[in-house]
């Protein structure tokens, strides 16, 4: 991993198109400003990890009877 030291207000540029600025530093918290093209997806890594965990949970389940669920949907109970 490349490690750079930046001060508040300083920026790094990635691939000419993405700018990450240290907006504020307060104790353990660092606020980052990100300027990127519209089509660049930016996510907190926890979100990605949560999706991964949820996918794993979806596969771990037993084999539910989908017709039974469809019946609950129709009847509302």
């Amino acid at each position, binding site marked *: 991993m490349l490690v750079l030291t930046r001060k508040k207000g300083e920026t790094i540029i990635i691939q000419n198109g993405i700018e990450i600025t240290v907006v504020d530093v307060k104790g353990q918290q660092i606020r980052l400003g990100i300027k990127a093209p*519209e*089509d*660049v*997806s*930016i*996510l907190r890594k926890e*979100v*990605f990890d*949560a*999706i*991964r*965990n*949820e*996918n*794993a*949970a*979806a*596969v771990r*389940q*037993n*084999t*539910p009877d*989908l*017709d*039974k*669920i*469809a019946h*609950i*949907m129709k009847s509302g109970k």
Partner: protein
Amino acid sequence: MDISTKAFGVCSIDPEEIVTFQNGMPGFEDVHQYILLGNGAEDTALMWLQSTENPDLAFVVARPETFRSEYKPKIKQAELKEIKLETAEDALVLVIAVVPEDVKKMTINLRAPLVINRRTKLAKQIVLEDENFSIREAVFESK
């Protein structure tokens, strides 16, 4: 061709219907080929997305509009380009469901929908930036 499935045992499938996740899905990056299995009807609310490679690997998937008619995920052009999606008509949007023992506690993942290009059969699970979409949306209780 015949494949083994989690829900239906051995099934005969049309290889043309296999959908390809070129980059897999988060947590399942190495699994690329799946087939949608339902009870036959196109309008079925719930279906199986079954791996054609691993019989034990299958997701229950739902048409989000069945549960949340207002669901309109905003998906970036670059992500649609990956599955060569050109028109909205070619898109089939599904969400993954987690179905616990008590099926009324079923949840759907609105934060990471699956988008399948019906024409090219390319698909991708897209993690949305919008934090208002729940990863665990209860479908029966909070209605």
